[in-house]
């Protein structure tokens, strides 16, 4: 990881490629579930731009992932706030996953993803930071700026909501 950070600080395009390769998917999935498909790409792009701009002053006090997802998380929350005030009424919801015709493994997966997307933002944020970003609950609490037991409480509510959503499939 130090090598990646040093490469980024030196402006190496190889380091940037590695950053995109190693974190692009995880960042995209995190943003996708948090802000939706129309915003996710923009948030990922902006995250990488912010990383490049700020890497010079980056001081590795924790894991690099934690710093990276802190940036993505802030940008995603900005996008959510922006959308909540500017989304046009005429915008039709898109069924991103396509039709699901039969009771199947995929049906459960799609139901779970939809349930995650319907979670309240604070619960969804903690859930995705744990699942997609791979941060520990302590890192999440630091990132979100709340005590550990608050982060765990949000995760609990998230789990309970997801459990209820999946009950029909059990």
């Amino acid at each position: 990881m130090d090598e990646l950070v040093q490469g980024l600080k030196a402006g190496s395009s190889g380091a940037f490629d590695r950053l995109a390769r190693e974190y692009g998917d995880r960042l995209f999935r995190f943003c996708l579930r948090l802000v939706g498909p129309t915003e996710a790409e923009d948030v990922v792009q902006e995250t990488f731009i912010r990383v490049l701009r700020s890497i010079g002053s980056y001081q590795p006090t924790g894991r690099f992932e934690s710093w990276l997802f802190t940036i993505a998380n802030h940008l995603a929350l900005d996008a959510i706030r922006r959308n909540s005030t500017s989304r046009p009424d005429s915008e039709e919801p898109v069924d991103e996953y396509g039709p699901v015709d039969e009771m199947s493994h995929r049906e459960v997966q799609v139901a779970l993803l939809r349930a995650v997307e319907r979670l309240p933002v604070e619960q969804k944020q903690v859930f995705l930071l744990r699942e997609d970003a791979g941060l520990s609950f302590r890192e999440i609490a630091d990132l979100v700026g709340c005590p550990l037991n608050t982060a765990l409480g949000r995760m609990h509510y998230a789990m309970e909501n997801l459990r209820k959503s999946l009950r029909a499939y059990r």
Partner: protein
Amino acid sequence: MECTQFRDEKLLDAYDELDVEPDGYREHVESCSGCRNDLEDFREISDQYRLASTECLPRLAPARKRRDHWIPAIAAALLIAVLVGVLVWPSRSVSVVSQAVPPTGLSSPLPAWDADDEAFDRELSELRRRLDRLEFEIRRRNS
């Protein structure tokens, strides 16, 4: 939640983050079917989500207005600035080399060519190249 005891510990345990088990935790979980169900469900939801998250990426979003028009806008602004500079101050190209003789009619010497402009142009080009590459990567993985 089927059992409200050790609520936080169960979550930490399900994600292998329970560094220190509180007194009585393991004995309680082993003897309480509610706690066992909680742990099992947390792990199952986590596993299912990880699978679903990687297997079920959504179809590409419908066409939308992109927000990164600022890049060509900045490039166009820079181009216009350079053109205006050349047209208004034809002697600037000379002063770039000499950096000494102001054109007639100007009360103060022209500023020396700002090396930062070139650095900015280079930085902008590099940033655009990286953005293109990143966009390509995202589309490739998303398709």
